[in-house]
């Protein structure tokens, strides 16, 4: 059952269209992540759901009741929507103690004092802040303030909890821990959540449904695995960090999943890939070839001369190229390389193999790992 329903939501800031007709639903107890770069409208959607902004068109329904409906003139005040919100800046009140901050939603609901104390203690215990209970909120570290904000958003057991980039101010290790703790808390308390983030790891690990946004519109919706594995648009591919190269179609054959397309990225650099969905590419058409950096295998190549290209008809199982390492950067368990093949640059990530800049390499790419999009109007993608 859909617990939250957003229908045709539109929001303008002067001339700027911040949200351009967005619709989605969230199931009871599920988490939906709004993922996208800054300025894509994801936070504005969240603020419209919270009642902090009023949309210019559309409707928002929570638990079957309209909280906003432009056409019907419905717009409930934020305090009437029974929500919990975790803000990006935490918005922990500096003039209150930790317990006062967390107890606030109960206090304004006129819950008896004894019950406020009991429920505040219980939720502080859950987020591991019992010891800090009577400290002034400003005495806490960023990570602890974040927990205060989380406890405050959960203490009154709201039906829906909204998260506005809650972890963007935490360091990487703390972020990983908070992600796990948040998943556990949601399991225990069973709230429905909408989670705004620009961090794909966060979105994929927390959400049942990921909505990727761009320029106020939805680019793609799906479960994390499908969004990750099969980017639906060049924007999503680029946002997820894939290599994107423009080329022309040389050859197109129907295959099991859509079309096998041979793309010329440069004079001497032709690559086979798969086009899933859309109009079949015709030879000469401008296309984008996307490759995940982890799917490009790079190995040392002693002589640096081109391999004889087997003159086969049809799609090869594996394609090899000769390139040059332009740059290498060590990431720990992995190493990232920038490889140039006939002047075209590709990023590759793999376990360190000691390549240095300027060394000739062989590059192996499987055709089914190359995603081909027909370039619309020649201005999509990178």
């Amino acid at each position, binding site marked *: 059952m859909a617990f939250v329903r957003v229908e045709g939501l539109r929001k303008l800031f002067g001339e700027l269209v911040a949200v351009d007709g967005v619709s989605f639903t969230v199931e009871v107890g599920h988490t939906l992540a709004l993922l996208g770069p800054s300025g894509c409208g994801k936070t504005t959607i969240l603020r419209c759901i*919270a009642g902090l902004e009023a949309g210019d068109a559309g409707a928002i329904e929570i638990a079957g009741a309209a909280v906003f409906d432009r056409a019907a003139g419905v717009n409930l005040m934020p305090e009437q929507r029974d929500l919990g*919100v975790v803000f*990006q800046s935490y918005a922990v009140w*500096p*003039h209150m103690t930790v317990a006062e901050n967390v107890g606030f939603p109960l206090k304004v609901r006129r819950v008896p004092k004894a019950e406020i104390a009991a429920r505040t203690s219980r939720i502080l215990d859950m987020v591991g802040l019992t010891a800090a209970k009577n400290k002034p909120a*400003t005495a806490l570290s960023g990570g602890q303030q974040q927990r205060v904000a989380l406890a405050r*958003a959960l203490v009154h057991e709201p039906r829906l909890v*909204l998260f506005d980039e809650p972890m963007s101010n935490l360091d990487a290790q703390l972020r990983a821990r908070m992600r796990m703790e948040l998943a556990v808390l949601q399991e225990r308390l069973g709230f429905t959540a909408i989670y705004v983030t620009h961090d794909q790891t966060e979105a994929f690990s927390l959400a049942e449904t990921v909505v990727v946004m761009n320029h106020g519109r939805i680019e793609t919706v799906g479960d994390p695995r499908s969004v990750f594995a099969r980017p639906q648009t060049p924007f999503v591919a680029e946002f997820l960090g894939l290599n994107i190269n423009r080329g022309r179609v040389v050859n197109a054959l129907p295959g099991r999943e859509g079309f096998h397309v041979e793309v010329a990225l440069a004079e001497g650099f032709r690559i086979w890939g798969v086009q899933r969905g859309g109009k079949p590419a015709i030879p000469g058409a401008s296309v984008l070839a996307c490759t995940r950096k982890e799917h490009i295998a790079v190995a040392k190549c002693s002589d640096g001369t081109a391999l004889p290209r087997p003159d086969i008809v049809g799609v090869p199982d594996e394609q090899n190229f000769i390139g040059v390492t332009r740059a290498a950067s060590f990431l720990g368990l992995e190493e990232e390389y920038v490889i140039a093949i006939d002047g075209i640059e590709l990023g590759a990530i793999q376990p360190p193999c000691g390549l240095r800049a300027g060394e000739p390499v062989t590059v192996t790419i499987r055709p089914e790992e190359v995603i081909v999009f027909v370039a619309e109007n020649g201005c999509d993608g990178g």
Partner: protein
Amino acid sequence: MDAPANAPIAPSDLDTQLSVAAGPLGNRGRARLAETALPATGVVIGMALIIGPFLATVIRSMLYWDASGPALSWLNFSGLFADPRFYQAAGNTIICGIGATLISCVLGFSLAWVVSRTDMPGRRWFEVFNLVPFFLSPYVGAISWVYLAAPHSGILSKLLADTFGLPPDLIPIYGIGGATWVLSLFYTPYVYLFVIAPMRQMDPALEDAARVHGAGFWTTLRLVTIPLLFPALFSAALIVFVTSAGLFDVPLALASPRGVRTMPTEIFQLVQYPSDLGRAAAFGVVVMAVTILLTVLQRRYIDRRRFETVTGKGYRPRTIALRSGGRVGALALEIVYIGCAVVLPVIALLMVSLSSIWTGTLSYATLTLHNFEYIIFNYSLTQQAILNSLFLAVTGATLGVAMSVLQAYYVNRGPRQRRALVDAILSLPLGIPGIILGLGFLILAIRTPLYSTLAIILIAYIARFFPFATRTVSSMLLAINPELEQSARASGAGWLQTMRYVLVPLLMPAIVAAWLMLFVIFIRELGATILLYAQGTETISVALVVLSERSFGYVAALAVIQLMLLLTAFSLFRATRASLIQA
């Protein structure tokens, strides 16, 4: 901060040339001397200007002249404390101060809120207008309100009596009530300025968080907004109390005519013939003690409760859409305030200044430019007063700002262990009433050649008001990353070159603002001047007081001229600040 002194400094060509002239000290020695000596000089002069009159007042309060000459004694204090007039004056001043503080806090907070947080129509304009009273003279404001509301002859009194048949002495403009009202109008912008910055910088999510977690608008205001702004509001209240209670101008115009005693007018009376400087000094010591106590309390309080509401992020303040009733209310508040503090007084001044005889109404028969002609071309007192005021304002502002830059440098970049103490001492005059500092300089100068010169007035002006300039420059210097100067030093610039090419240009907006602020203050200053002027060293404000016993028309005309000087400074302030921000 301390790093540039230890960091290796590559000498530039210019520095090398300078070092030749510097002689045996050499390049680095010379740079270090300028770096430490110049800011310290600014601080030492500032401290001397504070401690001199302070000590003079304290010592004079303990000297009592009898037949055998001066002797150390408590007689000045015991005489003061036995005098019922002391308690009347102190009581009236406290009532006035508390009343003005409460009214200006409510007005200032409300005006700041409607301007910064709502969609009230015309709020961009009101944002500017609300600051205008800050630049006007309270003495002129008080006499304008006499023109407006004096029993029988006031413009408003007449209007109300003629139109509604109300009694012609309905508005109690003379006395404590009237003085409190005019003080409130003039001190509202102080509160407004104090709270509008934190109101703007406050993370709007702090209020949003209250709304989404179940608090309505008024609950959020009560539990979140006001508590968060309370430190700013409380500081503003203390400063308004201290400065409004110490202001001489308004009680002189509105309380003295009815024989109502206040602290500043009582000190003025004690200095008049037959003067009792000892008792005046004792009164001054009591006031200084209370002022310093309140200032220290305020600093303590602020240090203890400095909330981190500003996270250094540029927040887009969320404006609240007012309903029609709210719009009308907000606009009415603005119109009443601007009307009472600016528009009505200016209209009254113009009407009086253009009439040959003032009867409470403007008539064509008495319309004339004679008042202006006379005070500009024919009357040596007013001519001299205008020249004196301009000289004092321009010279004083320039010297004061030069000193404030050095002090601000010391307070932000000087020896770390002394900064806080120096800052605290240099801020002391902020609350000391002008008339008391004037008294201190009078005692200091009375048997010296400085007595009855423009120079002593100039010194008193700088001593009383340089902390305003130092505050302005210092708060901007605080925001400048020391690495900007360190990189100039690392690139080979000496300290003086770094100041000249890097720091002073960066500080220019604050320097211009501080100069204009001192100019405005010096053009209208009355409390310190009234005890120090002599024949030939009258200022515009003194001339207004002197003339007020002779002619309404001349006073109004001279007040209009002063008003034009002040408004010019105000528009320059707006213009330069706007253009400096764009640059």
